[in-house]
């Protein structure tokens, strides 16, 4: 049980996928304009990542490893991710159309987002058991949501700030992202040299 908590805290804070692995930067910069859509995107990604962690572990353990097909890892994981994203897209379109609209192109882009594939590949590398892997995926998703929400909160404030002309838009956003990543470095070492 202790291990589970360790993985959860590690993926959310210490090894935050956005701030320490620099995965999922595209939606991190793209959807973080408004807090409401940032949270929506975060939870959509969290769902996809948790499910991905679950399904890819099963595929890896019961199909790829027994038949020595590890070289198919990337292809089969992408297949899983693409299907899951398609499913989430249909689900959101039906149930929460407003969120579906707000996310726009970034929803299908979760498919090609490195954060999901990165999670699946990292997970298979670390020899987690099923529960650990799912927690790993969930934590990564929550960490991503956390990063998005922090960023969206700051960017909503920045709207009212007097930003120098050349830094408006992309420039100041990247600087904020860098500072946030630096801030998250403060967590490293929290879990025994993490």
């Amino acid at each position, binding site marked *: 049980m202790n291990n589970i908590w360790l993985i959860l805290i590690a993926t959310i804070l210490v090894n935050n996928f956005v701030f320490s692995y620099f995965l999922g930067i595209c939606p991190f910069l793209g959807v973080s304009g408004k807090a409401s859509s940032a949270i929506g995107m975060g939870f959509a990604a969290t769902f996809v990542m948790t499910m991905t962690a679950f399904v890819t572990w099963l595929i890896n353990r019961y199909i790829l490893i027994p038949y020595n097909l590890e070289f198919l890892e990337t292809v089969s994981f992408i297949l899983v991710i693409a299907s899951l994203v398609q499913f989430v897209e249909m*689900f959101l379109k039906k149930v929460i159309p407003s969120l579906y609209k707000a996310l726009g192109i970034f929803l299908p882009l979760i498919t090609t987002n490195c954060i999901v594939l990165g999670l699946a590949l990292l997970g298979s590398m670390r020899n987690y058991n099923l529960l650990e892997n799912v927690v790993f995926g969930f934590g990564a998703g929550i960490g991503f949501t956390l990063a998005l929400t922090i960023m969206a909160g700051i960017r909503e404030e920045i709207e009212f700030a007097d930003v120098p002309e050349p830094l408006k838009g992309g420039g100041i956003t990247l600087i904020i992202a860098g500072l946030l990543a630096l801030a998250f470095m403060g967590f490293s070492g929290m879990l025994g040299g993490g």
Partner: protein
Amino acid sequence: MSVTIISLLTMGGIGLLFAIVLLLAYKKLAVEEDPRIKEIESLLPGANCGACGYPGCAAYAEAIVLEGVPFDKCAPGGAEVVEKIAKVLGVEGVEVGERKVAQVMCQGTDEAALDRAIYHGINSCRAAHFTLGGDKECYWGCLGFGDCVLACPFDAIHMTDKGIPLVDRDKCTGCGLCVEACPRDIIELVPISQKVFVLCKNEDRGANARKYCDYACIACRLCVRNAPQGSMEMRNNLAIILDHRQVDGEAEKVIAKCPTKSILKLVDDDGEFHLPPSLEGAKIVPTLKR
């Protein structure tokens, strides 16, 4: 060999499994959509240029059907598409505005306009413009790096060897992307029938302007004086056409006295477009000539 077969079988199997799951989900989660949206989307040009103010043709089609947005905003589609959409929506008697095309309002070719520096920066008008206003002495003139050429999704504007871009009026759809791309607001959308243009944006005093450009408007007011009352005016040392129909009517008289040939009749009475003298014999060259 066996590895190949096993790989094929497993990947095929996984794929098939997900396909079935998705198919079931699709049946369960299908959303009823107005069929007219798809129909209108197929009528729109599909260039996703954004001239209508929506992110793409699909978004615009949806806005037409669901929000009742006016359907005459598609510049590339023009009158033809508007008529077709009207048919789909069952609307009759739609009036369509005149077709507009882009016009480059500068004659500062490499021969005519002086440079004040050599620019070694990024090959883009925008970058040059922000680097102390670029290499041209004229702060209002065309920089000639072809940001507009790159912005055009219809291959309708090209760079010439004289350093000023040229619009292909047959291909131009009036989407306005080049207008936005130009950091100096030199390109304007003009009605296709407009005949007389002031091909200059220079707001400097005449005595200065004529020093660095052969075709600069020197604010002598001769055209304004000869144009019908109220159809033209001087604004910041630059002649502005307010009512092109009145000016076109008196075209010969208005342009005759211009000492720098910055006001010109480019479209003749048969509607044929002629190049300004500054661009005569210009050849089309690749965008980044410098």
